[in-house]
């Protein structure tokens, strides 16, 4: 398994001029908290954003996800099994009281026959706890049928994540791998945050790791 296809989002030497332009726009928008709707569907771009959100979340990262996929794009691009993503998650989980709350629609993406503890993110959090380095919280919950049908009835079949209630990434069309990210639209971010908090009590806990 490899993390690269055409280019590696975490290795600037593999970027061409377009990718350099793209990452300049993303990093500039993050730095300025610019209200800019940036397309973020390409798998490498999505993983780069995941790392960016994890590395920059000061208080919270709330995510409504499919299965916390270890690999995306047919296994060509590492997501939660990417060392850069895990390093960013480690950074976030060392922040006191920072909370990463995830609600998943499907079962956790682990090796066949594996348990949730085999997921790279959970393994990381448990290792940090055993080493007494865990300062933040990791909460993973499974969406119940009630949650799924409520979203279906509301015709809101998207995955999203919200960082500190101020920045968001929303998958607008998963079938076409379309998503947008915005670092400077707190109103929309709060709306997605509200949606997540409305769903959260109706999930069933998969794992809860606290310091």
């Amino acid at each position, binding site marked *: 398994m490899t993390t690269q296809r055409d280019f590696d989002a975490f290795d600037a030497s593999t970027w061409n001029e377009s990718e350099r332009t793209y990452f300049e726009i993303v990093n500039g928008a993050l730095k300025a908290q610019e209200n800019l709707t940036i397309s973020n569907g390409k798998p490498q771009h999505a993983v780069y954003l995941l790392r960016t959100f994890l590395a920059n979340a000061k208080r919270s990262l709330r995510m409504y996800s499919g299965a916390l996929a270890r690999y995306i794009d047919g296994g060509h691009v590492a997501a939660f099994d990417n060392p850069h993503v895990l390093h960013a998650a480690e950074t976030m989980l060392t922040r006191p009281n920072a909370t990463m709350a995830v609600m998943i629609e499907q079962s956790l993406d682990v090796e066949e026959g594996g348990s949730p503890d085999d997921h790279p993110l959970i393994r990381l959090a448990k290792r940090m706890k055993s080493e007494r380095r865990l300062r933040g919280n990791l909460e993973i919950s499974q969406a119940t049928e009630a949650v799924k049908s409520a979203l279906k009835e509301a015709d809101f079949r998207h995955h999203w994540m919200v960082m500190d209630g101020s920045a968001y990434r929303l998958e607008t*069309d998963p079938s076409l791998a379309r998503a947008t990210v915005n670092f400077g639209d707190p109103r929309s971010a709060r709306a997605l945050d509200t949606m997540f908090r409305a769903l959260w009590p109706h999930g069933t806990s998969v794992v809860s790791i606290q310091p």
Partner: protein
Amino acid sequence: MPPFGDFESFLELAFAVNLIWGIWGDLRARLENRFGNPKLKTQVAAAIDTSSATAVDSLVERARRWRSGLSRVGQVASLAVAVAIAMCLFFVQSTVELSGGWRALVFFAMCPVPVFAFFMWLVNPIFTLAVWLKAGRVTIDSSPIDNVGQATKDVQKSLTEDGSRESSDGTGTGSSGNG
């Protein structure tokens, strides 16, 4: 006498103006990157994110090279033109006495700024147009984020009704976490 005194003084001025213009050009490029047109940035990012890398890459790369190349050509050309005009004028001025209007015209012609500005005025819209033509075809569907408020209300209503039903028939699911 040339309008700026002696020939050396004119050259110094020509170089100084060109230098200032170059610095301003660089500063402007940085400002454009920092406070650039958000819609254009959105479109460019979308074009890069949704298109095949090579298709957009060739456009962006060529446009950038072309632009920076022409900037350099423009700078050199403006300086060369300024020096050439200055040399011509030096000889003209030394033999012909010009009236006020002609003198003003000569003053304008000798300044390298209009020459360089002409290049930039020509290049910038073409560059922008090229990016727009390519990136403008990409549309971003903003409806999901526009509808999230209403969707949240619908979800809350649905879950509340569902919770009421479950409470009444005693099949409530457990809740977890603190979100």
